[in-house]
């Protein structure tokens, strides 16, 4: 593993809670690693598992999905839908040889800027320890 390895983590953030939470982390000047690439989605339930696989296939080292806490979804059940999908995604990734810790679903509310920073720190460190995934190269073998 390269010592200078900086993980690339794609974070899908729900527009109502988690993206606002990430914003709060910023306006509160809480420090967190710059390794996440935030993507604003309308709801964590909007995240199709295809997005997660595509992120890994195109070079992400980790994928984070953040949504409203259960019961708080702006669309009532969107985060419950994601809650059912997430363990299925983990199971599939595991069967494909992608470590469980590279994928994570977390609930972050609009007022939890510190929690967002904490989650990002954790996943960045975990993925850093696992090393690069390099799925682009793995995929190239079957071009």
């Amino acid at each position, binding site marked *: 593993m390269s010592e200078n390895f900086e993980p690339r983590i794609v974070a899908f953030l729900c527009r109502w809670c988690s993206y606002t939470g990430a914003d709060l982390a910023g306006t509160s000047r809480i420090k967190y690693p710059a390794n996440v690439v935030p993507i604003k989605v309308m709801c964590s339930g909007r995240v199709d598992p*295809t997005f997660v696989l595509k992120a*890994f296939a195109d070079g992400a080292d980790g994928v984070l999905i953040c949504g409203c806490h259960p019961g708080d979804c702006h669309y009532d059940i969107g985060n419950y839908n994601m809650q*059912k999908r997430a363990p299925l995604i983990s199971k599939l990734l595991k069967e494909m040889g992608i470590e469980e810790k590279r994928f994570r679903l977390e609930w972050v509310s609009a007022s939890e800027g510190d929690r967002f920073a904490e989650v990002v720190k954790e996943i960045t460190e975990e993925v850093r320890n696992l090393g690069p995934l390099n*799925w682009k190269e793995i995929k190239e073998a079957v071009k």
Partner: protein
Amino acid sequence: MSAKLNLAIYWAGSCGGCDVSILDINERILDVAQNCDIKFWPIAMDFKLSDVEKYADNSIDVCLFNGCVRNSEQEHIAKLLRKKSKILVAFGSCAYLGGIPGMANFNKKQEILDRVYVEAQSVENSEKIFPQPHTKVAEGELEIPVFHDYVKSLKQIVDVDYFIPGCPPTTEIINTALNAIFSGKLPPKGTVIAGKKNLCEECPKEKTDEKKVKKFVRPYQVIFDEKKCLLEQGIICIGPATIGGCGARCISANIPCRGCFGPALDVSDIGAKMLSAVASVIDSNDPVEIEKIISEIPDMAGMFYRFTLPVSLLRRSK
């Protein structure tokens, strides 16, 4: 029709079922004989590869190529037939998607060789001898094709004009393709000759909005309601992510779909779409219970990527 069409049919990494499906079109095969000069068909007629090599480029009008590409011989013939053919058709799920042999991409090449030539119970090979591309014997040198690292679909090797899915393709689909070929009314390049909508649209089973699965089962474990959607009864069916056009023949026989027709329109990865479909029928909001329910799905990757692993987003396992 003035002149006969030159037709070639080849099998690469396939079981032979696709060739049989061509013979299975009943009296329509007489039309084929009447309209076509067969230029190459190893399973049925005696042509040699050297004959094909002698043909002029683009002299074959239509080539139906079935089977995946796993070794150097298959790759060579795929490239050769591309050069000699005006229209190259990926015929059947293996050529189109990688197919059943594509599941070999869950393992590395050496793992497969070890299993077949060393570990298999019926094999005695303590010296660990593996087949080599070149072997010297008293009579000279023997050559076998080189076994590639991974299975690929035809499109991953050469440019393909049309795709005919199915394991094997149905008579109806083959007839649709033959009609297009004989009439000269060809669809745009890249067309998949299948239905337009997903399989659920043509499935005869009754669907409701009630998604209440507490346990996933395999068909032999339950007596299920034959009139109702299988997925809603906890039997995994790949129909929601699969393109229609097959007439739901497996489901009509109470066998859940395994997705041989390939992804529905706008679906790039059957496995990912199936994750959503399966998640949507689970009746629980408790993470622990959800975990327990999904733990009962055996070999999920193998089931979701039964026919499509080499063309899926991830294409192989790590």
